[in-house]
């Protein structure tokens, strides 16, 4: 009997003590776990994966410390500390999907931000929907993600590849280049094929009567392009389009520049920004360079951009490239959506559905300017894009003749597939 009385007193005391404690000292909100997936090994690590990882690390540190400028100055995500769970994207699509499942089911992340490879994006998208987890695709470009069915949990905070290809053709047009024919070299997988298809379609609209000379499709990470360069030189193309990226792009520049490809053709490097400083003295003047959006040196001047560039450069001793911008844009989009959803939920931790509802159709200003989740039921963001031409000034790479194109000029309207929009002459 005494034991029961003692137990009752202890339990009541504990309950009262805990109630009092809970009234006087608020319980710290649980952390928000974010899975960050990017290439940490393999040829894509250095130009893309690591700069993106660095941006994620920097942003999460700044958010947790509450030192980012407004509107990102609330600590963490709505006051909850952010915990980054970092995963290497390198590997087969099967292993990437397995790691994605592990992130959600084992690591219990609240959301995933990641993916550079279009193949990987296509592989994980249905799983993200199945597991009902917010997934922000930060870099991969294939438009097929949202064109192949409605999505509820998957978002992309930057333009897809159509903007790069249409922007490149618009840039040629703006320079009054008379392109009677054009060729291309693109990697033989989703990204390369989509990029070439959109560029080809855009050229047919903007340069009626122009024709394709050759379309080279080497495999991803081929590294050896002597044959392809010969084919491009033989084709006597007036314009050459390439969406090669990372080590493939760098190898292509190293192998093609000494052979005079840039003298005989106007060469467009749609992802050239990642290589332009490292290979400054190898890229001939006049090469057309893109950054997959208004990023890097093509980012618009703003206090937010100045803060981001200074913080990144100070921390990593190198300027952020476009993948750093894309990662930052994605995490900022997630933060604003989370905090909006939390506020709508009376300060309680929001569900994935509430975060998705808050992100859908939102407008987010990042270091790369204003991005609006305007397409695909508010899941695909759009922004302006920009291109310029390389010019070496006193040993330093600069871009001249920079031209900017609005989101409406380079991205299809909502509900319309890129291919159809281009085929109809960019008409709505």
């Amino acid at each position, binding site marked *: 009997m005494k034991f029961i009385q003692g137990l009752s007193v202890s339990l009541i005391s504990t309950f009262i003590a805990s109630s009092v404690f809970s009234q006087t000292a608020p319980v710290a909100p649980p952390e928000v776990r974010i899975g960050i997936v990017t290439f*940490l*090994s*393999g*040829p894509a*690590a*250095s*130009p893309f*994966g*690591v700069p993106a990882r660095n941006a994620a690390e920097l942003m999460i540190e700044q958010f947790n410390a509450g030192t980012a400028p407004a509107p990102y100055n609330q600590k963490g995500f709505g006051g909850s500390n952010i915990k980054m769970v970092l995963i290497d994207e*390198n590997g087969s699509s099967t292993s990437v999907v397995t790691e994605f499942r592990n992130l959600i089911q084992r690591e219990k992340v609240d959301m995933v931000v990641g993916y550079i490879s279009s193949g990987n994006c296509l592989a994980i998208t249905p799983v993200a929907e199945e597991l009902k987890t917010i997934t922000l695709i930060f870099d991969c470009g294939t438009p097929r993600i949202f064109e192949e069915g409605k999505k509820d949990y998957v978002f992309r905070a930057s333009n897809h590849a159509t903007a790069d290809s249409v922007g490149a053709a618009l840039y040629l047009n703006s320079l009054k280049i008379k392109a009677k024919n054009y060729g291309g070299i693109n990697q*033989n997988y989703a990204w390369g094929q989509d990029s070439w298809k959109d560029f080809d379609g855009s050229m047919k609209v903007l340069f009626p009567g122009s024709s394709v000379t*050759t*379309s*080279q*499709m*080497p*495999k991803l*990470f*081929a*590294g*050896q392009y*002597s*044959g*392809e360069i*010969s*084919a491009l*030189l*033989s084709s006597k193309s007036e314009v050459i389009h390439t969406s090669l990226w*990372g*080590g493939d792009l*760098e*190898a292509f520049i*190293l*192998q093609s520049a*000494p*052979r*005079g490809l840039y003298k005989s053709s106007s060469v467009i490097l749609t992802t050239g920004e990642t290589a332009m400083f*490292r*290979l400054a003295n*190898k890229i001939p003047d006049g090469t057309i360079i893109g950054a997959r959006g208004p990023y890097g040196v093509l980012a618009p001047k703003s206090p937010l951009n100045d803060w981001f560039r200074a913080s990144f450069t100070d921390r990593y001793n190198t300027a952020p490239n476009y993948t750093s911008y894309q990662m930052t844009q994605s995490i900022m989009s997630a933060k604003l959506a989370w905090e909006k959803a939390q506020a709508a939920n009376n300060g309680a931790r929001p569900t994935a559905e509430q975060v998705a509802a808050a992100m859908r159709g939102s407008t987010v200003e990042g270091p790369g300017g204003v991005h609006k989740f305007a397409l695909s039921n508010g899941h695909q963001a759009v922004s302006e894009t920009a291109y310029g031409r390389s010019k070496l000034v006193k040993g330093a790479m600069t871009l001249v003749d920079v031209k900017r194109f609005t989101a409406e000029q380079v991205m299809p309207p909502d509900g319309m597939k890129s291919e159809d929009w281009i085929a109809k002459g960019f008409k709505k």
Partner: protein
Amino acid sequence: MDQLLVVLVDGINYAAWLFLSAVGLTLIYGVMKIVNVAHGSFYSLGAYVSATVVGLWFRYGFDPYLSYLALFIAALLAGFVVGPPIERFLLRYQYDKDEVVILLITYGLFLILEDVIKLIWGVDPYFVSEPYELLGNFEFASMTYPSYYILMVVLALLVGLTLMFVLKKTQFGRMLISVIHDREISSAMGINVGKIFILTFGAGCSLAALAGAFTAPTISVTPGLGVEVIVLSFAVVVTGGLGSMAGVALASIIMGLVRAFCIHFAPELELFVIFSVMALVLSFRPRGLFSLAESRKI
């Protein structure tokens, strides 16, 4: 006509690279019956060592033309410094195990070496294009080519002929052939099989490093560049016949020419043309073009 000549030059250039990349793999398999998946790591190692050596060579203003010799020596040293200890202290204790187990061990080795390379050189790319640009260009069939291509072809010929000479004309080569056919009998006849193995493994690794070293000036030297090489080398070696030098040479030439032809006339086929050649050859000759005859033990 010019177009066909261009195909020929591109094909031979690619064949030279394929041969250099694959010959070390077939040498090791021929003698030791090991499918060395770590071959790609030695290719990467050669590329990174080359990047470091060439970088220093030009920074300190040494004779630029001697940089090719520096590349050559650095690659051979890299292979012989790292390869033999792996054979002596790891692989030697595995020979009684199944071939698949050894393959898995070399795969593990590949993963470890890839990380060691990242640990030493980091993930930032290295560019050492000076040797590639130093020799200038030449004109052929209305096309501009870097003279470095000639260097690669000459190097491939030099490696191929040297290996043939060593195998056919030297005492060491005859001992090697003896070990290839039967290591037990060779051992009974007084041949130090352990010594042959360690030298062969070192040579095979050095050849992979040599291919990486001379490819480095044409590419961005980044982590993971050896992965593609393993796959292609394996395709060449299997097509040529596992363990056959002549097979590797012929398979490289066939694959190089067919690939170049596709690039110029049917680029959409380029992705799988090398593996199509492999499948075609293996469907008629399942053991490859020049499979070695195997003695039957009773």
